């Protein structure tokens, strides 16, 4: 499996395909960002190594703090050093051994990062994700090969049509300063020492180096440029030089490619890509994520717009469907209305009778019928008695009376309801001779008479309730000897007849 590493330097860019023990350059650039994505760029994700003159190192002694105070102090220091630069790295190198034991902090930043950012944006446009941005000098400082306790590591390698002098100062095996100079290859003997001296003077101020002390110089260079480096060392009396051949380092890394053309950038790309996990980058780049988010946002907006249009069209269709249904219903109702109107035109309200509408007529007639049904007429009552008496010729009607039964105690109904709702009770006084038939036969006859009346469908009860003959068990019997003949000549009976309901059809209707 291959990994891709883009080497971005001032004036030179190389895309490496790393794998099978080598880092193969597949594309070279000369500084400007390509307008179109080159065909060689197959990478979907790559790591970026920056090797820029604009990368600045600031080694600071800061009071040892923790938590929010520490973050606040560092943030303030970062703003103080680099203002609003987007690519800034902060690394704690340790603490002072004595005194206030301040924190030793290395701030690095890519100054004036316009061209670098343009590269990041282009990569994002090409849909290439950036795993992270690593600094070449910081990567090299992390190598465990040929560690430098204190001194200058000088790396010489080609960069376009010039030579790159990367000077990295280490203290306590940690990188505290780095600087890149580009010089022409034919003037390296002149400009090289000048650049080193400039750095040395700067470091004397920055780190308090002793001017008379000799500085260890570790020279990293390929075999092809070993002679150039030796010529340079002769011009540097304050440095004690030690050479490290790049081929040896590469061999230790497991480099299996061509050693003749091996240079620092390729080796750095190889060392980065051969890591199992790339680990934390020196600079974070969010251009790709921002662009990705921007794309998601745009996609979301387009989809949202499409969704809105779709939903509105769907809703509108539903509304239209309902509207069509309503239209049909309205048409049906309109037809129904026309039919009803025509029918009503043909219909006429009946003429009023005595200024009464039909409903008043109904209530009037119903009231009349209610009263009429309760009216009592003498003819039906007397006919009932007459027809019964015809069956019993021996019975003679002496008196008859009828009345509507009085209301019960506490009945609070209206007078009309009392008058009209109570049943009729009739009392008939009947006389019959008993001398020939005997007392018992006379009583039996009257009882049969009462039973005959009771058979009438409108009679609820008819019974013998009284007599001059002592036939009831609860009545006292008095008598005087010698008077029986007068008593038994004829007897009078009282028959009570009760009708089942008011009027009981005893009306003249």
């Amino acid at each position, binding site marked *: 499996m291959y990994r891709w590493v883009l080497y971005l330097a001032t004036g030179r860019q190389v895309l490496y395909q790393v794998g099978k023990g080598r880092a193969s350059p597949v594309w070279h650039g000369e500084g400007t960002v390509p307008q179109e994505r080159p065909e060689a760029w197959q990478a979907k994700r790559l790591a970026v190594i920056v090797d820029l003159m604009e990368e600045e190192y600031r080694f600071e002694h800061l009071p040892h703090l923790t938590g929010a105070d520490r973050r606040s102090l560092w943030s303030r220091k970062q703003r103080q050093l680099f203002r609003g630069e987007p690519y800034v790295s902060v690394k704690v190198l340790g603490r002072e051994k004595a005194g206030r034991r301040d924190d030793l902090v290395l701030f690095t930043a890519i100054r004036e990062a316009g061209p670098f950012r343009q590269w990041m944006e282009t990569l994002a446009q090409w849909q290439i994700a950036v795993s992270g941005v690593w600094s070449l000098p910081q990567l090299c400082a992390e190598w465990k090969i040929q560690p430098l306790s204190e001194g200058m590591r000088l790396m010489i390698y080609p960069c376009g049509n010039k030579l790159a002098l990367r000077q990295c100062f280490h203290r306590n095996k940690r990188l505290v300063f780095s600087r890149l100079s580009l010089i022409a290859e034919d003037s390296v003997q002149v400009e090289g020492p000048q650049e080193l001296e400039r750095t040395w003077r700067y470091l004397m101020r920055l780190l308090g180096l002793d001017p008379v002390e000799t500085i260890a110089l570790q020279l990293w260079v390929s075999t092809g440029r070993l002679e150039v480096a030796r010529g340079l060392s002769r011009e540097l009396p304050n440095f004690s030089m030690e050479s490290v051949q790049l081929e040896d380092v590469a061999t230790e890394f497991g480099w299996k490619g061509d050693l003749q053309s091996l240079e620092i950038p390729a080796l750095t790309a190889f060392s980065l890509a051969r890591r199992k996990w790339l680990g934390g980058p020196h600079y974070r780049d969010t251009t790709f994520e921002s662009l990705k988010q921007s794309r998601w946002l745009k996609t979301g907006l387009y989809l949202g717009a*499409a969704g809105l*249009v779709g939903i509105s069209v769907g809703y*509108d269709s539903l509304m239209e469907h309902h509207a069509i249904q309503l239209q049909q*219903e309205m048409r049906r109702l309109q037809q129904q209305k026309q039919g009803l109107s025509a029918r009503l035109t043909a219909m006429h309200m009946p003429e009023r009778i005595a200024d009464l509408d039909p409903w008043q*007529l109904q209530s009037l007639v119903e009231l009349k019928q209610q009263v009429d049904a309760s009216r009592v007429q*003498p003819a039906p009552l007397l006919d009932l008695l007459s027809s019964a008496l015809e069956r019993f010729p021996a019975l003679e009607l002496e008196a008859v009376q009828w009345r509507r039964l009085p209301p019960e105690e506490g009945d609070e109904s209206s007078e009309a309801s009392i008058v009209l709702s109570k049943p009729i009770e009739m009392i008939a006084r009947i006389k019959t001779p008993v001398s020939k038939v005997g007392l018992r036969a006379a009583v039996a006859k009257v009882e049969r008479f009462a039973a005959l009346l009771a058979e009438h469908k409108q009679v609820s009860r008819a019974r013998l309730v009284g007599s001059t003959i002592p036939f009831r068990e609860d009545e006292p019997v008095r008598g005087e000897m010698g008077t029986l003949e007068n008593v038994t000549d004829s007897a009078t009976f009282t028959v009570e007849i009760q009708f089942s309901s008011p009027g009981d059809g005893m009306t003249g209707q």
Partner: protein
Amino acid sequence: MTVPGASWFEMKHLPWLVFASAFVFATVTVLLFHHQLSDRQAQRDRLAREVASLEQERIRIEEAVHLHERFAPVYEQARRQGWWQPQDRLAWVEAMETVFRKVGMAGFNYTLSPTRQLLQAGDFGLRSVGIDLEMALLHGAQLLSFAHALENLGPFSWERCDIERGQGRPEPGKGNLQGVCRLEWFSILPQETPEDDWDAADMVSSN
């Protein structure tokens, strides 16, 4: 940010413009269609109310026709029976003279009580005049003839009656039956204001 090869998709403001346009389009069309539907619903409801009103009118007329057909004959018949007119006391007095002679009763007294309202049903009131009768009858058929003759005056109800045969043998031209009865003379009239009860306080009696 200027990016080579940027398509319309990458334009900064276009997505927002498209979204805003879609939002406006969706809002406007939804409101328009919703308004249109509401308008039609209102029209439909109005039409439905009109139809319901017409249907109600049809039912009302049909019911009126039905009620008229059913009750008008009964009303007419009752009118001839005197149900819908106030109790005419003068007519009673005049009629009693005629009836007394025609029936040939041996004796006859009556007392008419003031008119009173027994019942109120809707716009109508059931009014009644109580009549107490004392009759001396030659025979029982005279009672029936008298009752029959009364029906020409109006609706009566013989609420109470006590008829007793006289002692001794019946004699021609003499009252052999004594009858004491209480009658109610009904009429149903529209509900009257209190001033209309002017004649209710009058009492007519005859010996």
